[in-house]
């Protein structure tokens, strides 16, 4: 199941959704808003996305993961909008018969999501400035 939402993420709902008597292993990744990046202090985050393409890319990645690993159930939820420190921006949870497949599949999904899915994070630094995060892009003069 794929979801992009402005509501707070409920990791327990994701775990319940993927739990199954066909599975011996559930692995969950939760991305949370960290206070410090190197020495810069974050006050909050904002996430924006290209909604049609983001949903499509997430669905494609779920399908590709199911082709590679024997996944029983899979749930990917990404949050948008304003996030306070400690709040979750993403949950990826899935179940497999054996644990190695579950660890590999969740890591692969997270790696691919961070490369391919058109979602962007805006840092709201504690010093009052804001900055869109674009790995590899030279700093912009605004």
């Amino acid at each position, binding site marked *: 199941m794929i979801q992009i939402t402005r509501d707070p993420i409920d990791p327990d709902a994701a775990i319940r959704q993927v739990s199954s008597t066909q599975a011996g292993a559930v692995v969950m990744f939760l*991305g949370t808003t960290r206070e410090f990046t190197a020495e810069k202090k974050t006050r909050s985050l904002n*996430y*924006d*996305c*290209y909604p*049609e*393409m*983001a949903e*499509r*890319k997430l669905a494609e990645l779920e399908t590709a993961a199911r082709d590679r690993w024997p996944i029983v159930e899979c749930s990917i939820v*990404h949050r948008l909008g304003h996030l306070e420190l400690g709040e979750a*921006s*993403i949950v990826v949870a899935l179940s497999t018969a054996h644990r190695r497949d579950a660890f590999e599949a969740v890591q692969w999904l*997270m790696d691919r*999501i*961070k*490369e*391919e*899915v*058109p*979602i*962007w*994070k*805006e840092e709201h630094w504690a010093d009052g400035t804001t900055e*869109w*995060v*674009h*790995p*590899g*892009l*030279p700093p*912009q003069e*605004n």
Partner: protein
Amino acid sequence: MKIEVRLFAVARQLANQETIAVSCPESATIADLKQAIIEQLPELATILDHVRFAVNSDYADEKTQLSSTDEVACIPPVSGG
């Protein structure tokens, strides 16, 4: 033809617009579109070497040909997750 290009994140911030309409020759490719953007919206020139373009919600390459009905989007490096 006019190509509408959706902008996100720093691209939207630099252009101060959510969508731009770019004049391109007929059967322009993504490479042609980038050249046209540099001429018409020079404020986006600094990022164009580092962004990808999507056509109808799929990543396109420099040689992808465009038609005026395509949904085109400028995709700066992503930072979700």
